[in-house]
């Protein structure tokens, strides 16, 4: 029986190498939604850091908007990944070992710090109980506990970790309102961490915006190459 699917399809070794390269590069965009995702995240970090720098007295609306920034970033990144960077479907690529190890160390450290802060909030609450503090602290503790998971699940690219931790920390403070309540001692401690993270986060954000732009240009080139292959076939 003849092989009905055989056809004059003879890729050269060079073509095979080219296909491998395209798959690897496409897989990276498909996995991390770098490029515009980086630009979006870097922009949000700058905006947040600028508002802190100016010490603008934020109203409830502005606090909510700024508090929602990391979630907007995560949603935007996921949308870009699924609807833009995966224009030819998903290609799942394993992460390099050093990247996974680094992420594990950073996330572990973040989880430990957050657990310690959450434990202290609960301890203070038990000593100085009031329903107003309970309401405020529930949001605060919930955000602290969710933060390592969010970073681990959605902000895995090397540049994203510091910016993600900064935005989520700021969001925790802004959404729970702890600096303005009697439990302000906890909030102030945490707010000082936000101030400490601000400068490194801004530096990383600047690099992230630039790298994101370059990566997006590379993606456009990659898209042209993949489309050209399909049209040539």
């Amino acid at each position, binding site marked *: 029986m003849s092989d009905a699917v055989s056809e004059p399809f003879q890729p050269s070794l*060079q073509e095979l190498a080219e296909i491998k390269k395209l798959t690897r590069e496409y897989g990276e965009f498909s996995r991390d939604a770098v490029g515009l995702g980086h630009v979006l995240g870097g922009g949000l970090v700058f905006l947040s850091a600028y508002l802190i720098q100016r010490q603008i007295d934020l109203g409830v609306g502005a606090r909510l908007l700024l508090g929602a920034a990391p979630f907007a970033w995560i949603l935007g990144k996921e949308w870009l990944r699924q609807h833009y960077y995966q224009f030819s479907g998903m290609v799942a690529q394993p992460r390099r070992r050093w990247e996974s190890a680094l992420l594990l160390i950073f996330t572990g450290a973040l989880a430990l710090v957050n657990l310690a802060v959450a434990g202290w909030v609960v301890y203070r609450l038990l000593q100085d109980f009031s329903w107003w503090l309970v309401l405020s602290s529930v949001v605060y503790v919930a955000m602290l506990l969710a933060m390592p998971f969010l970073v681990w699940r959605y902000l895995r690219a090397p540049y994203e970790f510091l910016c993600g931790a900064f935005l989520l920390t700021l969001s925790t403070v802004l959404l729970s309102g702890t600096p303005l309540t009697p439990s302000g001692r906890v909030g102030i401690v945490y707010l000082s961490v936000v101030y400490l993270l601000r400068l490194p986060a801004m530096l990383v954000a600047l690099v992230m915006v630039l790298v994101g732009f370059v990566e997006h240009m590379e993606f456009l080139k990659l898209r042209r190459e993949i489309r050209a292959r*399909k049209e040539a076939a």
Partner: protein
Amino acid sequence: MRADVENFLSIDRVVHEPARLVILTVLAEAEEVEFRFLERVSGLTKGNLSSHLAKLEGAGYLVVKKFFRGKLPATSLKITRAGRRALKKYRQQLYRALRGKRNPRSVQMAN
């Protein structure tokens, strides 16, 4: 000489077919690949690609997973250990067969 001929004759015919070689090469570069990407990058038609995938699946070189992306059905493919082993063995056999007759760097480029 006899060893060379035996080596050449023992080449895995499932992998040796150019379209299937492209498919395995792409799959070996990733953990999981969606059908749509493979279709674009290989330049094969849907029907051809499906036939080759069925052969590779039959040989145990890949697994096919059907799922829904929203309301649309989608297919993803994953190379098996046997598939990776077969591809590696094929490359080694091809390299040995071509050694001395071509510039080995051109073979390494595809590895």
